[in-house]
């Protein structure tokens, strides 16, 4: 069940990233870490998920990916400095990915809501809870997806 839920986030990430940024995102790995994990997170966008599945969903990306995402959101304008607008663009991307994942989860019978995203920059991603980490690559740089379960999902 957990892997089915995670797969919805993986598929949503690939599909939305490609659709929004017009860049192919290649999944290179998906690993379960039962005791948590720790890795550098240049830009970490985190959203809470409530309802049928309770947990957290994070998109961790290289700063270059964040800048390029903002550039696309601003109709191709070159973006070289990480500022609030870049933060807003990556939050919006994560929001749309979460929305797409929620739509897919509802089709599995899990009605979920998404919280407003928050961003951390230049810190490590660190959790002692069990989580799935998906690794992706695109021409702009690397991206990771982390799905963390607060509790077992309940199928209705």
């Amino acid at each position: 069940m957990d892997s089915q839920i995670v797969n919805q986030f993986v598929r949503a990430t690939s599909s939305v990233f490609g659709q929004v940024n017009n860049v192919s995102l290649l999944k290179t790995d998906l690993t379960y870490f039962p005791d948590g994990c720790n890795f550098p997170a240049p830009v970490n966008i985190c959203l809470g998920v409530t309802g049928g599945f309770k947990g957290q969903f994070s998109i961790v990306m290289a700063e270059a990916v964040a800048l390029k995402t903002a550039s696309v959101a601003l109709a191709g304008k070159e973006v070289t400095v990480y500022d609030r607008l870049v933060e807003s663009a990556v939050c919006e991307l994560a929001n749309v990915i979460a929305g797409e994942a929620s739509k897919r989860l509802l089709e599995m019978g899990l009605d979920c809501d998404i919280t407003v995203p928050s961003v951390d920059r230049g810190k490590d991603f660190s959790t002692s809870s069990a989580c799935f980490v998906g690794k992706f690559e695109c021409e702009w740089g690397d991206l990771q997806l982390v799905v963390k379960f607060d509790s077992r999902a309940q199928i209705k």
Partner: protein
Amino acid sequence: MSKKILVVDDASVVRMTLKQLFESYHYTVIEAETGEEAVKKYQTFKPDLVTMDITMPDMDGITAVKEILKIDAKAKIIMCSALGQSNKVKAAVEAGAKTFIVKPLHPERVLTTVKKYLD
């Protein structure tokens, strides 16, 4: 006089994108970052149309739709949200939104929808 559109979204990049799009078609744009701010700005500016996100701090978009419709039962509100689950669309339409556009937003689709309700 140009028609007024109130753009409600907590993401500044979305507000900026929609503002540029609407202004290039000579609409006047007013922005709000939260549902609560949207209700206040609706009262002040009486826009011809509102684009409304759902997930926002303070007051969510569906509550804001209900509050705006208490002020003006004829308010034209288009939901623009990443939450495209069928139950969210249904809740928004039941709250009184005219229609629902699922993000990512495509400029042509947004414009066509806005024009349909404004003209």
